[in-house]
């Protein structure tokens, strides 16, 4: 049996589904916002930029690479 688009359940649960949708969107916004804040709070942003699952020394300033 296939649920038809116009099934009565869809209208009955419309409010609940919309609520769940809003909560999920809110959750995404929180995770995104946390990511932005946490990255911006790094003392030295190169900690983040110079590591891409492998060290990337080419992104370090020359003086520090030579040390």
């Amino acid at each position, binding site marked *: 049996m296939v649920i038809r688009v116009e099934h009565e359940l869809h209208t009955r649960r419309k409010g609940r589904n919309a609520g769940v949708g809003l909560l999920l969107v809110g959750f995404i916004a*929180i995770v995104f916002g*946390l990511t932005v*804040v946490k990255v911006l709070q790094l003392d030295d942003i190169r900690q983040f930029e110079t590591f891409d699952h492998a060290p990337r020394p080419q992104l370090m300033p020359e003086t520090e690479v030579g040390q």
Partner: protein
Amino acid sequence: MTDFSANEQSIQKAGHEAGMGDYFALLKPRVMSLVVFTALVGLLVAPVPVHPFLGFVAILCIAVGAGASGALNMWWDADIDAVMKRTASRPIPSGRVAPGEALGIGVALSGFAIVLLGLATNFLAAGLLAFTIFFYLVVYSMWLKRATPQNIVIGGAAGAFPPMIGWAVATGGVSIESVLMFALIFMWTPPHFWALALFVKSDYGRAGVPMLTETHGRDATRRHVVVYTLLLVPVALGLGLTSIGGPFYMAVAVVMNAWFLKGAYDIWQRDDAACEADKHAVEIKVFKVSLYYLFAHFGALLVEAALRLYGLGGWSW
């Protein structure tokens, strides 16, 4: 598909399907508002600034954690909620939400709030939130509430943790200030609830919950209100002598404690005949005063923190 249809039939028999409002009611929004307020004060008066977005997420997590413990409490106490007039319209006893749904929502939201708080701030704050939920569900709801008339005294700790969690969010630690904020709510809870129990006396008895009014009588309850209010006073004044207190807080504390003490004394002086004669007017008034009391103390802490921004708050200026 069979399960799906069966579910539909059972819903139709019940005549109601839970909506978002019913699930939200599971989270005890009124209790949540007090939790949000005290946790926010704990966070804002701490000497370490918190990024506004992290602060928002932290307060959201504490509120959701408190709501989750409310849902778990409703799941466990559905049988006695159905008996008491004050709680009979809650989502589970009124048949709007199934007990299993409340349990699932409570467990899921608890996990969500604890993990997110730990990742967003620190794991001491997350640990305190986890302990609060555990304390409210297991120690208070499952163990003390139906076992002893001292249920309110020890169980009140669950409601006292939020400012301590807010403080831990900012500082990553526990200090005398956060302990005294905890103690203020902890000591305030018994006289607050016993004042309530004095004018909704028949409900708790019918539900078989051993409130002090039922086990030791109303006179003993009146004496307890006075004694616990007396014990509350040094805690409230002591908080004013810490780094988050100051002259403004102390002035508010002196006035509010005098008002609350006067109310407790008035309750102590009364007997059942006087209560019946004015339909518990004094008890109802003291219950309201107790709400103003807590709001005024935490509001005054907030004012002190705001004054400190201009070099005016605290005792040092």
